[in-house]
């Protein structure tokens, strides 16, 4: 009995991720060296830092007395533009994401359609909103229309991909059961796929509404209209009190969106 126990190993260690000890240590050494060299190349300009801090003090004091009134009509117009841009681009983006997302699902679409849709989605995802906005402003001129196109495109890139991934993860046995009844492709989508992915699709669409509102402020800075343009103007004129008013409004609206979408998401689960 004792002999049997002794013959078994009494030490065990989890196998390391990189089996070769030398490779492991070389990798660690390289990473550390890179960190040291990289940190050495950062130049900190202390005078500029202190000036910037002083400016941020003025900025903060502007925040304490936000001025909603003197630029009220600009702010109002910017807000209306932004909200319009947000809502329209989210609706258009979601509406277009559904066909692209279904087409980009391997378990629903034939191979050629799958490849096409995945390529379109990858293209829409390849560029950041700001880059898209710069292009679209150059193509369609200043104003909220360019912003609408930007946000719609990036909504497709975001939502169609997540929807497609979700559809591909849908329980295949439920799809099989619906298919076995003699259902058509569209019935398979509405009766087998939709119930499985709908709660997440609704949640993601509302989340995208949040994102689109925040992005609408950003794309305004490069000329695509909306509250971002108003904010940019205020900062250019050193009107920190008006800028603070705009920022507070953005924060308020984003928080309201977040709260609202949380409520809806809990309902649809």
């Amino acid at each position, binding site marked *: 009995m004792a002999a049997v126990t002794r013959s078994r190993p009494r030490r065990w260690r989890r196998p390391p991720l990189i089996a070769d000890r030398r490779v492991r240590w070389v990798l660690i050494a390289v990473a550390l060296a890179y960190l040291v060299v990289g940190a050495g190349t950062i130049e900190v300009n202390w005078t500029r830092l202190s000036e910037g801090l002083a400016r941020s003090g003025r900025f903060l004091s502007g925040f304490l007395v936000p001025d909603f009134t003197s630029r009220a009509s600009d702010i109002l117009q910017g807000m209306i533009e932004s909200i319009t841009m947000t809502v329209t681009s989210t609706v258009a983006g979601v509406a277009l994401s559904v066909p692209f997302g279904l087409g980009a699902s391997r378990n629903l679409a034939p191979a050629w359609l799958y490849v096409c849709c995945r390529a379109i989605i990858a293209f829409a995802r390849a560029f950041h909103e700001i880059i898209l906005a710069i292009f679209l402003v150059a193509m369609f001129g200043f104003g909220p229309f360019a912003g609408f196109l930007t946000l719609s495109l990036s909504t497709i890139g975001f939502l169609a991909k997540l929807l497609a991934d979700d559809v591909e993860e849908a329980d295949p046995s439920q799809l099989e059961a619906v*298919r*076995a009844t003699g259902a058509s492709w569209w019935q398979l989508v509405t009766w087998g796929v939709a119930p499985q992915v709908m709660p997440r699709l609704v949640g993601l669409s509302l989340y995208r509404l949040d994102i689109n509102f925040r992005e609408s402020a950003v794309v305004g800075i490069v000329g695509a209209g909306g509250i971002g343009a108003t904010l940019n103007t205020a900062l250019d004129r050193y009107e920190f009190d008006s800028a603070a008013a705009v920022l507070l409004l953005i924060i308020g609206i984003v928080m309201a969106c977040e709260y609202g979408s949380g409520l809806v998401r809990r309902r649809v689960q």
Partner: protein
Amino acid sequence: MTLLRIEGLTKTYPTGDAALRGVDLALDQGQVIGLIGPSGAGKSTLIRCVNRLVEPTGGKVFLGGTEITALGRRDLRRARRHIGMIFQEFALVERLTVMENVLSGRLGYVGFWASWFRRFPADDIEKAFGVLDRVGLMDQVDKRADALSGGQRQRVGIARALVQQPDLLLVDEPTASLDPKTSRQVMRLLIEVCSERGLAAIVNIHDVGLAQMFLPRIVGLRAGEAVYDGPSAGLSADILTRIYGEEDWTSAAAAGDDGGDAAGALRVETERRIVAGAG
């Protein structure tokens, strides 16, 4: 009269696995058979080749007068309406209500928009209530499918298959996710509705004891070939060895591998009786 005829059915998956190697099978109207065999013998593939959820690589399947294996997509959908299917993990659409799950059995008969707006013909609604009443779920109609117990879910699965008014049921391990008592109740219900409606059925089942208890004719599948086709009483130890491989079929831990309780003991007793009868 022959309802289903399978001739030389083969299926080789793209990976190169030969799941079926020339299976012949004929099924009369109203006849219920059990399909037994070890895991990977091709039981699931066989029944999925009948309604072409899995596309066979060779051979023919006839249902009534039509050659299922020769149908185009549209006609295949029509043919599938006459073939009900019942699944191991129930395969209900979890977020839909019991009624919606049952009505999904009528999808092949209604147009897209009618199904989108849940506007089913009054006849279909009546049929759905009829089968729900038969399986004893009249008071669960508007519950969501994921709120039901295992046994109740499989009853919904049976109702969904029945509301299609099929000629043939394909049943894939109906009891594998159920406890022994519920398993027997579900099997009993299945056999009863088949005889009431004159339905033929192929029942995949890995529990030999349960198969012998409820199914008079057994087909044994091993590595994609039918190695036994005969009365369940003829399943001797020799035959079981031919289907499953070497094992002591007369002692306690017999083919049913999810037993170990009262039902397991009973199963063993049934088997003993049958083995004794055969020998």
